């Protein structure tokens, strides 16, 4: 195929890698996260989309300065070997904890809906096994999996039909019915749900058409945003404000509204099918973490992925209290915001260095 061995991600790969990494557990709880603004949350995803498009710019700009290096290498180049490695280690750990958080919350959801009376050990173990299987195929395998995931899971939109039928359009009004504090709260908690597009900084060197990468990533982002928008809109139509606030997995309850003549509970099908979305998100993160390991230890080995998977498994199964786990996972989510602004910082360093060289 392509003569350049490093570059193999075509535009579809980029679109769906960006899109799938964004849609994971976040969208399940998005209406609840945004519940501080009540019924006015409908249009929030669009705001998120705008912010995401803006924050994507410095990432792409930064990467296009170093078209053959991923963020880990850029860190090392710009910050020096040891400082860079330190930052990279931090990012790798962050990714591991973040993906553990995603897996753990999904596993608990599965445990409460589909697998009652069972511990999450065995399901989590097999889940991670599959994870390793996918990641071992490299970023292209992950990207292909993302494409398939999109087409397999998109029919789930149909499951929302019943909720839409029952919902009240009048809930959309009035727009912008919130104060500053509520807005801030919703932004802080809700934006987490659409994290994932920042991973483009790590697979950017593998993209064939790097000039158009921004456009393709934007398409991916906005597909996700539309999905989020549909979720919040239908939730707003279907729920009361109290329900928005106290129903943790809103999507699950939206699915509960429907039934086929032969399947009474769509929610179980929906939640188990969700494993594809979780897999596609976590594989992307894990692959990036693996690249991080490669650059930390300065050599590429396939075996690192087993070590990383083991760490993820141990984090999920760690014998700490539920409270500590939750704190850890939410802390790691907020650290995710740092990665969003990180390229801006790097850009400044880059410009300063350039000046130094010139003078």
């Amino acid at each position, binding site marked *: 195929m392509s003569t350049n061995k490093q570059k193999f991600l075509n535009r579809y790969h980029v679109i769906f890698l960006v899109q799938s990494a964004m849609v994971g557990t976040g969208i399940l709880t998005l209406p609840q996260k945004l519940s501080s603004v009540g019924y006015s949350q409908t249009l929030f995803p669009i705001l998120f989309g705008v912010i995401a498009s803006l924050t994507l710019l410095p990432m792409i700009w930064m990467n296009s300065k170093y078209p053959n290096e991923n963020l880990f290498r850029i860190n090392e180049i710009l910050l020096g070997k040891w400082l860079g490695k330190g930052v990279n280690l931090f990012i790798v750990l962050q990714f591991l904890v973040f993906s553990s958080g995603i897996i753990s919350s999904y596993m608990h959801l599965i445990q409460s809906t589909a697998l009652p009376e069972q*511990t999450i050990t065995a399901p989590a173990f097999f889940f991670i096994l599959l994870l390793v299987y996918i990641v071992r195929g490299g970023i292209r395998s992950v990207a292909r999996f993302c494409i398939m995931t999109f087409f397999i899971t998109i029919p789930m939109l149909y499951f929302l039909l019943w909720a839409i039928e029952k919902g009240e359009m009048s809930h959309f*009004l009035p727009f912008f019915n919130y104060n500053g504090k509520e807005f801030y709260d919703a932004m802080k908690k809700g934006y987490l749900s659409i994290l994932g597009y920042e991973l483009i900084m790590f697979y950017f060197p593998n993209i064939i058409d790097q000039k158009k990468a921004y456009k393709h990533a934007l398409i991916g982002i906005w597909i996700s945003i539309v999905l989020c928008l549909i979720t919040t809109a239908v939730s707003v139509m279907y729920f009361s404000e109290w329900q928005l606030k106290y129903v943790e997995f809103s999507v699950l309850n939206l699915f509960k509204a429907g039934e086929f003549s032969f399947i009474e509970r769509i929610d179980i099908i929906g939640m188990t099918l969700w494993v594809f979305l979780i897999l596609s998100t976590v594989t992307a993160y894990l692959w990036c973490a693996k690249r991080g390991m490669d650059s930390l230890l300065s050599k590429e080995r396939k075996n690192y992925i087993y070590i990383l998977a083991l760490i993820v498994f141990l984090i999920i199964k760690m014998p700490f209290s539920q409270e500590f786990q939750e704190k850890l996972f939410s802390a790691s989510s907020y650290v995710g915001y740092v990665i969003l602004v990180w390229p801006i910082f790097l850009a400044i360093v880059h410009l300063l260095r350039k000046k130094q060289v010139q003078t």
Partner: protein
Amino acid sequence: MNRKFKLMFTLFVLLFLVGCSEKEVKVPLEEVGMVGIMAFDYIDEDTTKLTVAIPQYSPEAKRNTQIFSVKTDLVSKGIVKIEKLSDKKVILNQLRVVLINEEYARKGRVEKVIQNLYRDSEVGNKVLIAVVNGNGEELLKGQYLDKPNINFYLNDLLLPSINTAFNPNTNIHDFIYTVTNPVFDPILPIIEKIDDKIEIKGVALFKNKHMIESITPSEALIIQALQGKKKLAPLPLDLNKGNGKEIVMLDLIESKVKIKSNKNHKSPKLNIVLNIKGTLSEYQGKREHELNTPKSIAILEDDINKQLRKDIEEFLKKLKGLKIDPIGLSENFRMYYKGKWNDKLTDATIAKLKVDVHVKTSIISTGTLK
């Protein structure tokens, strides 16, 4: 060497993991008692009588439904108690109907009970709720000769049968939605056991988590019409227009409602336009032989309009007296209100509400006979 080591390592880890997994005992389907109906009867403020109906599959058994009754203060405690009585594991996965007796509805903690079920992920959201006139346990234990299985009987009775029979079915989601939504007050259907039949007697109106009043099905029809339901149950009307006793029956109704508010919750005013299209299925009265010209039908339509308008206005007045809003009329003001809407605002709005009702009926056909 490296491969072998990897293999050994994996096996080793797997071996340890076996120890982690506890032996999980799966209860096979045939050893599970799937509760179909739950009934709550009021005893006193703290204790409830919980009755459950579990279908039996064994062909040899004389009764096809097992009914267990326990006194309890918490729902889950009651389930545990029932498990002791039953030979099977009791699960709520296939719960279909929750019955609440009237006394419990008026005094008990209906909202808490339903919320408990709503939280339980095993219970679907489509569980129907109904108020029982009398005793829920008796209703479950009753003999219904032509409907041997109470589980199916009640479920079929409460589920809307294709838009014809009147049915204000309310499921768990609807109940929680209306209870927690400040612009709504919940309604629940009332059923009653009469000899060996169960009948939907009317609709219970709730105010702040407690039942306060019951209304007739025809009044409940107005609620549905004003909520914007597109297909209505057959509508009987008494026309008292100086022509003596006249009874009209409209069938296959398509209704459309337009509500316009003045967007001012301080001096609220609503303009309601109800469009009804239907078939005149039955008519009793003096005009029976005149109803074959478009003109006479137009007169009849006009009479129906006036009568319906009067009925609606009277009903709204009644709601105003009760200070409740089962239709969700105050939603029309919440839509334009900046800030958090609450129950107090609803109450104030309803108390001050002025309504302007217009009804437009059109009779599409009068059947195939001339």
